[in-house]
């Protein structure tokens, strides 16, 4: 019967819970990389995968389901890290180990991540640097209903508020939407002449795309855009960087993170206790450094890691820019 099936699972089960499906990285990179590494390290380990579609209570239920399927290790990338304590508790009660993946959870057993606040800080610093530490910027943050967006925002402010850069206007973009980013930026151009805008902070690559569309739409030449930031290292963003339309994006070497997570999960499943951790707010952690990708290091980062191939990036539209940037 159903209940027997629940008890009778042999081997080890690792549950991987990711927060959403609207950014590419989770299903295109984290999940396959993680699964592949687990399969490599442990033949009778099984990976159960869940995606919460940005819904906290759905994720809570998924934790429950994972427990019901007898997970030994739960690798949890929380929709909302600050509010995920309850889920962690229920999982731990069942005897499972909880690994906070990519986003911090206070009560987790282990934590692996690129720190959100430091991502924002890196973006801000890179922007200030690209602008020569002066001039006005527009600032587009993530969704006000997304707790992580607040962390990026905080980090970015840390970097920018102390610099010589002046924030002309700031916007929390509902749903991170590129359309809204484009509209908002266009509307700002009614107030600030394009010549006054020396840079744009966009929290992620989607918004950066909207910003580029707005600025070019207002008559700016695509090759004369002010520096624009981004995050996620989306293919479209890398293409824009190569073409000189976007200054930078944050690339998190997901491969390292995912594979480390897989190693950790397998060893936890086998009952081992890893010792090479550092401490982050009381949780045994592995912290990785996010990488700033700019035109000059595309080749050494995303291409080198096999994140994208040169042929992915250099489609017909970007062929010229690619050869100019030495990509081929």
């Amino acid at each position, binding site marked *: *019967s*159903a*209940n*027997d*099936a*629940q008890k009778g699972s042999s081997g080890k089960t690792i549950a991987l819970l990711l927060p959403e*499906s609207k950014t590419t990285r989770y*299903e295109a990179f984290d999940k396959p990389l993680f699964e592949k590494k687990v399969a490599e390290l442990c033949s009778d380990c099984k990976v*159960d*995968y*869940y*995606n919460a*579609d*940005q*819904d*906290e*209570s*759905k994720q*809570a*239920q*998924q934790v*429950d*389901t994972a*427990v*019901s*399927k007898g997970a030994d290790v739960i690798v949890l990338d929380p*929709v*909302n890290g*600050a*509010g*995920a*304590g*309850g*889920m962690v*508790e*229920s999982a731990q009660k069942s005897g499972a180990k909880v690994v906070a993946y990519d986003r911090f959870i206070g009560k987790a057993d282990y934590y692996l991540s690129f720190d959100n606040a430091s991502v924002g800080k890196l973006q801000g610093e890179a922007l200030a640097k690209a602008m020569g530490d002066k001039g006005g910027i527009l600032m587009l943050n993530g969704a*006000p*209903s*997304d*707790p992580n967006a*607040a962390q990026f925002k905080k980090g970015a402010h840390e970097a920018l508020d102390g610099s010589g850069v002046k924030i002309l206007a700031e916007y929390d973009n509902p749903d991170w939407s590129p359309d809204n980013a484009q509209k908002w930026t266009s509307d700002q151009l009614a107030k600030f002449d394009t010549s006054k805008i020396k840079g744009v902070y966009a929290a992620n690559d989607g918004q950066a795309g909207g910003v580029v569309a707005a600025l070019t739409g207002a008559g700016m030449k695509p090759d004369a855009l002010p520096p624009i930031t981004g995050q996620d290292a989306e293919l479209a963003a890398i293409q824009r960087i190569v073409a000189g339309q976007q200054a930078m994006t944050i690339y998190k070497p997901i491969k390292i993170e995912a594979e480390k997570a897989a190693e950790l999960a397998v060893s936890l499943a086998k009952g081992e206790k890893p010792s090479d951790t550092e401490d982050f707010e009381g949780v045994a952690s592995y912290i990785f450094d996010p990488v700033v990708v700019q035109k000059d290091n595309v080749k050494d980062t995303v291409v080198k890691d096999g994140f994208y191939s040169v042929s992915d990036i250099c489609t017909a539209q970007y062929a010229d820019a690619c050869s100019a940037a030495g990509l081929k």
Partner: protein
Amino acid sequence: MADVQDATPGVPADLLDERLIQNEGLAGYAKVFWNRLRGGELGSLPVVVGLIAICVVFYAQDPRFLSSYTLVSMTQFAAPVGIISLGIVLVLLLGEIDLSVGSVSGFSAACMAVFVVDHGHSMFLGMLVGVAVGATIGLVYSLLYLKLGVPSFVFSLAGLLAFQGGLLYVLGDHGTINLPSDSGLVQFAKFGFVPDLLAYVIVAALVLASLGLQLVGRARRAKAGLSTGSLGLLLVRSALLAVGLLWLTSYLNVDRGWSYLWVLFAALVVVLDLLLRKTRWGRHLFAVGGNEEAARRSGIRVGRIYLTVFVGCSTLAAFGGLMSAGLLTSVSQSSGTTDTNLTAIAAAVIGGTSLFGGRGSAYAAMLGIIVLQAIQTGLNIVNVDSSVRFIVTGGVLLLAVAIDSVSRRARTSSGRG
């Protein structure tokens, strides 16, 4: 001339018309049932069939879908949105809509959390505040509707936006507020399960109460000279109910048993169902939903009905939001924003409530939320890519309702006079 008909001796007063096709005994009922099946008048049965189909498919994929553990957590997680969906049933019965239940649930929960965690008041007081916030919002809605005549779609759309802003405003820089895990709310919503014995006692009491009420009703009808329906059928039905519930209880008791949250939801459903079917208020609500002008001309105070319904809906939304916060042990900027509206409305509609008013029941919310929850849990267990998951969710949803629609097909070509 009235007496011409009364002359037939022994026939109940309501079965005298010679055109009525009579059916007696269990065999007769089987025939009636078969005719209703063909005529598409089966109420919610087809959706139940759809649900069973869903269960069979997922069970075939992974038997753990029907394990005690899964059923327990499925019901527990279904309850908060189910409670919100109950309110939606009310507004839909009037032919109105409330798009803001999600935002209201999040906003109320945030008010509660700030009141309790930041201001250090007791959880009980906090919950009162949360519910009061919901009720106040409903009051404002009904004033907008009754005094200014703003359509419900518009004011609830405005509410959807405004209370999302309110949520952000109340939470302020906090972002997320974690509720103390030893608080009554969290204990109740997340860790509260009915002890095994108590569960059996409750089930027995329920079945006996329902049987008793039906027998009393029968006796009253018989005394008044009206038809009573088969006693056998009544007993068989009660027995089936008893066996079903007892078996389910014992199955859930293998794991943690019925969660208090679900029991609360079920109790709300039963109460609301009785209110709708057995009281003046419920009767008037159906009348206003069916034909507002006729209801007004019958002397019904239509305004009061709207008031109670909008207040009821927002209050239930707030209450559902509190329960959801208890289950999650936290309130955040995203509370109530994601899909809550659509899920709550969809549950009511899938369960068989009409968007045009006058048709539906409290059980619709329960049935609908179970269907949606089953799909979601099933897909969680089966483990697929997001793109596939979205597509399958849509497809399965369609399937569940299509069975219903096809069986209703016979009824469409109607006409009067």
